[in-house]
């Protein structure tokens, strides 16, 4: 479980996050949703330590992370897997080398064992046999799946996904969402997904946090969406024509 407490962040005097608190539970996808520029990705980056919040705390189980020493942070980070918006695969490495990278750097596993683990993870994301391809030789959806394989190769306890569906077609988006859900349930990870894709919200939104102009305005799950009672949330959810028809 991850808990954030009163997280605030400003850039050049502009407040992006204003006292965000909440918990992200184990074994289910926790979604952070909201329009562009509401601070979703900033919150995610505060949680993984890529951005230092001005105020507030992030707890992994009971360990305080935000102001922990570099060594303590490293200890927690080695249990984190992250899928970036653009995949963030290393251009100069093959698919296999990309997935094996955390094992190469963070473990002393023998090569044969590492290869087994990599092949298992690639198979798990449906990319068996793609080991020797370079990131530039595979599609955007496949890059995301390689990113997921890399994020779980080290038996990560925490999985963070920053807009996993951006730039993907609807079918591939569903495939990625399903994969995130399956992996979360199968490995009992604490998964945090930042998205503004309503298909994802309706598909895997077991726990949803809605951000609006840096504030947390609503929290619930996909079943509560239709009757949130929050105007800003309704505006966001029902901006989509399909959702409007669904409501009618």
């Amino acid at each position, binding site marked *: 479980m991850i808990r954030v407490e009163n997280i605030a962040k400003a850039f050049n005097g502009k407040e992006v996050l204003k006292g965000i608190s909440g918990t992200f539970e184990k074994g289910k996808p926790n979604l952070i949703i909201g329009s562009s520029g509401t601070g979703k990705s900033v919150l995610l980056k505060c949680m993984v330590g890529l951005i230092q919040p001005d105020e507030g705390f992030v707890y992994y189980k009971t360990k305080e992370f935000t102001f922990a020493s570099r060594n303590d*942070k490293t*200890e927690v980070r080695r249990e984190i897997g992250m899928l970036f918006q653009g995949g963030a695969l290393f251009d100069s490495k093959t698919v296999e080398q990309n997935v094996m990278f955390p094992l*190469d750097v963070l473990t002393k596993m023998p090569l044969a064992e590492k290869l087994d683990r990599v092949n298992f993870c690639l198979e798990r994301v449906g990319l068996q046999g793609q080991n020797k391809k370079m990131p530039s030789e595979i599609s955007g959806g496949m890059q995301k799946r390689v990113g997921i394989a890399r994020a779980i190769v080290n038996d990560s306890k925490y999985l963070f996904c920053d807009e996993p569906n951006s730039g993907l077609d609807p079918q591939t988006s569903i495939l990625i969402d399903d994969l995130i859900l399956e992996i979360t349930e199968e490995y009992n990870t604490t998964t945090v997904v930042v998205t503004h894709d309503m298909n994802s919200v309706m598909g895997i939104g077991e726990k949803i946090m809605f951000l609006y102009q840096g504030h947390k305005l609503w929290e619930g799950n996909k079943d509560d969406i239709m009757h949130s009672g929050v105007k800003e949330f309704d505006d966001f959810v029902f901006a989509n024509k399909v959702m409007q028809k669904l409501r009618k």
Partner: protein
Amino acid sequence: METLGKYFIFLGKLFVNTESFKTYFKLTIDEAINIGINSIFLVSLVSFFMGAVTTIQTAYNLISPLIPDYVISLVVRDMTILELAPTIIGVIYAGKVGSSMASGLGTMRITEQIDALEVMGINSTSYLVLPKILGALLTYPVLVIIAGLLNIAGGYLAGTLSDVITPYEYIYGIRFEFNPYTVTFALIKSVVFAFLVSSISSFKGYYTVGGSLEVGKASTAAVTQSVIAILLADYLLAQLLL
């Protein structure tokens, strides 16, 4: 001043929370090949022609019959060892290697590859930059030695083929009152320049913010600032060590 402070903090980060020796060894060898071996052709070409041109132009300027011909190769030797091989090749090195380092790191930054390393608990500064600096420190002095030899060889060929100096006089001039300390001085300069080019270029690339346009700007700034640093260091080292 703020940038200078940030640069020194950046250098400090190279040595904290490091990975295993084996990891750095492999990465340093890769970088040495990438930035050293792959620069040999350009360095050789430039050095050879620089030596040839220096010989011809020195001969053209020494028109007094009172000055013996071996002075031509003596001038070529001292210019080569003291300035042409370490400094001018340093400027070319900054253009080739510095821009490549800055654009490589800049691209990694904007495509979140550096963030990916940080999230994994890897000190990205140390992991990405330290091998580049070590690779440059290992290979640039070798490039300077190659450049010096080819400079003198280029001068020999151009001088003898165009009959401005005989082979005997050229060799005599090269050996005349040779001071081995000049070679030591050149090698000290090469180590300092390698450090400046690799660290400044990495610094500019590592802190790129924005998109592809900013990567280009970082690359240009890396070359400009590396060249300025080389020229300043060249002057300071000459004052201190000669």
